[in-house]
């Protein structure tokens, strides 16, 4: 995250992973899907266990919870797939992200977002771009591209 510069705000989609709130820039979100049939890829890493069909495209389904060492909860009626598009290995790539629950598109001001604390984080610090506050809740902004590029 660039250092907080002024009060510019951006829209972010907030969703739950194992009880914590995460947010991704709404700019990269293509759509949000209810849970659909997932094809398991035998031999793939736990992080990208399967493939889904998004409007005729074969798209890998990723589970960020694996990268954050969270417990993988069973699929519930609230489970959603957030389809995001990003630049990965130099090409535009579409990926589905499993979310326990999707909340809303929230307005976040850049000033309110801080660098992740150096200590006291349970996750790899380079996987989190910043921490913001929304009401009384902390919102974690994952470094999506970095997480995927790290494989």
């Amino acid at each position, binding site marked *: 995250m660039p250092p907080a510069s002024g009060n510019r705000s951006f829209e972010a989609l907030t969703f739950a992973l194992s009880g914590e709130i995460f947010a991704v820039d709404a700019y990269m979100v293509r759509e949000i899907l209810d849970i659909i*049939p997932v*094809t398991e*890829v*035998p*031999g*793939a890493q736990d992080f*990208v266990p399967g493939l889904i*069909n998004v409007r*005729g495209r074969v798209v890998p389904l990723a589970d960020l919870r694996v990268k954050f060492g969270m417990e993988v909860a069973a699929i519930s009626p609230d489970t959603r797939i957030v389809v995001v598009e990003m630049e990965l290995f130099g090409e535009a790539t579409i990926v589905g992200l499993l979310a326990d629950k999707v909340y809303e598109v929230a307005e976040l001001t850049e000033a309110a977002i801080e660098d992740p604390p150096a200590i006291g984080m349970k996750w790899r610090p380079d996987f989190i771009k910043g921490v913001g506050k929304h009401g009384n809740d902390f919102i974690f902004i994952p470094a999506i591209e970095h997480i995927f590029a790290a494989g």
Partner: protein
Amino acid sequence: MAAATDPHQIFLEEAAELLIQLEAALLSLEAAPDDRELIATAFRALHTIKGSGAMFGFDAVAEFTHQLESAFDRVRNGQLAPSAELIGIALAAKDHIRDLIGGPDAADPAAGADLLCRVSQLVGAPAAPSQAAPVAAEGRREAMVTWRIRFGLAADSLERGINPLPLLDELRSFGPCTVLALTDAVPPLAELDPVACYLRWDVMLTTDHPRGDIEGVFIFVADECELQLEAVGDAGGRLGDILVRRGDAHPETVETIAAGRERLGTLLVREGVVGEPQLRSALAEQKHVREAAGSQAAAIGSVRVPAERLDNLMDQVGELVIAQARLKQLVAACDDGHIKAVAEEIERLSNGLRDTTMGIRTVPIGSLFDRFRRLVRDLSHDLGKNVRLTMSGEETELDKTVIERLNDPLVHIVRNSLDHGIEDPDARELAGKPRQGCLQLSAAHSGAQVLVKVRDDGRGLDRDRLRAKAEEMGLLVPGAPITDAELLQTIFHPGLSTAAQVTSVSGRGVGMDVVKRAVDGLRGSIEVASVPGEGTEIALTLPLTLAIIDGLLVRVGNGRYVIPLSAVEECVELSTADDLRHTGRNFLSIRGDLVPFIRLRQTFRSPLPADPYQKVVIVAAAERRVGLVVDQVIGDHQTVIKSLSRLHADVANFSGATILGDGTVALILDVGHLVAEGQAAEPPRQAS
């Protein structure tokens, strides 16, 4: 994309194509220096490169090309012979033009100046005796124009040794030409003077030569002949209009008669307005103009389309095929006859659309083969060998992507053949072979696949050396028995080269393994056959397309997978006895052959219990067979291949994925990899 409409980009593409044409013409010219058509092609290519180069600001290109064009203009006019030296310079100059187009820095100005100097020396040399092309100083080429030429000779001209036929032939050399003799002046036989010339000719000529060239044809007979020369334009049109324009009939008469609504020509003759010969001539003109317009329309009939759009089209057709499969599945459970009829209609249309789209993407393999003429010429020259390249099946069509990705592997193979396969002329003579070696490129369809072969008549692969090398590298246990085919397959192992010495051409041991990987990437296979002393043949079997394949849909546990049908040999049931013989080796006896099998349920770690009657799908790759144990064989499936993302690059068992009729994703098995794995699971041994 902007690239599609960027004129700069269009010039680059066009120039690349013209350079290919130029090179092909030059190489053919080497063998047939008298072929005027080839000279014309080379000249046209240079001319266009010069013209559009100047238009798009490639001044260096235009200037350099201009010199070369002038030389070829002289060749075209018969003033300069297309000698081997000139062609050699022209080929080098062609490369220089390519560099110049690539950027002013890519080209070496000194080399360019040297080439120009050599060209002007050649041009400056006394002109070769030409068979007097009486073409007047030829100006700028113009657009295609149709000319109407009517000429007749004085009655006594034949007596004076004037022959009209060469004149007509010369007109024919300018372009599409229709010649009609007007015989109305021929008297009855009794009055006929056999040496008098009674004939006149109407000639319709469509050409880009200027008027001066046409008049030049008649320059020596100008005093003895009547000559009318007019541009017809593209008008053509109705017969009456033509006759009126030619002054053979009066407009009002034609109008009156045309009102009668019979065939105009018949009426005009019957009414005595025009004579039969005039009418036939006018009809010939009508036909000629139509044909000329038709052939120009045909040239416009092909459209340059950015490859990206074709890819998008293919993607969309792929999705249509998937949606259609889904519709078919839904309709199968429905009783409404009308809906069924519509679904069938859509199936027919989408199949047609799929075939057409795939057809658009295919290009003849000749476009790829042609590049090898230069490679073989230059390389055999560098190596001091005398090699003749023959090609067959150039018209065989393959997917554009396959052709593009076939280039590098073929270059490797051809280089290997020239370097290691074909011997020096002296060595060949010693071995009782003709001094000239022969390299053959061929392509042919075989089912849904294309067979591409590279064959040379060189010394063949040295099996002893191959074996020694393989043992040295630990690929083979010294002294272990091995089939000839297996021994030959070792050339595809990374790092193995039988060349005793590393040359600049090949021999570093990088090559054949790269070839193998490239061919595997195309879902093709590669085989080697070699007879010591007689030559080597490398055969590539390639799929027609990379986009859609026929697949066999199978179920393993609760997952569904597609096996490319081209790899499937047969399906058998896994007998309980074979199934239970768990101890150590998994082998199946197929008509006496032992075939290893892989339990896909174990490979894929399926938690579900196996079906009571499992099936074995026998697949083959590179002449090795392996059985894949599945729970159920579901049936055939039109498979639109989608590649896996980089996130799944580490998963080796699958070559891609596809979308099934119900919208779920199924993985496509990488048979080559599974076969290699199945074979590796067992110690090397012979099946028989």
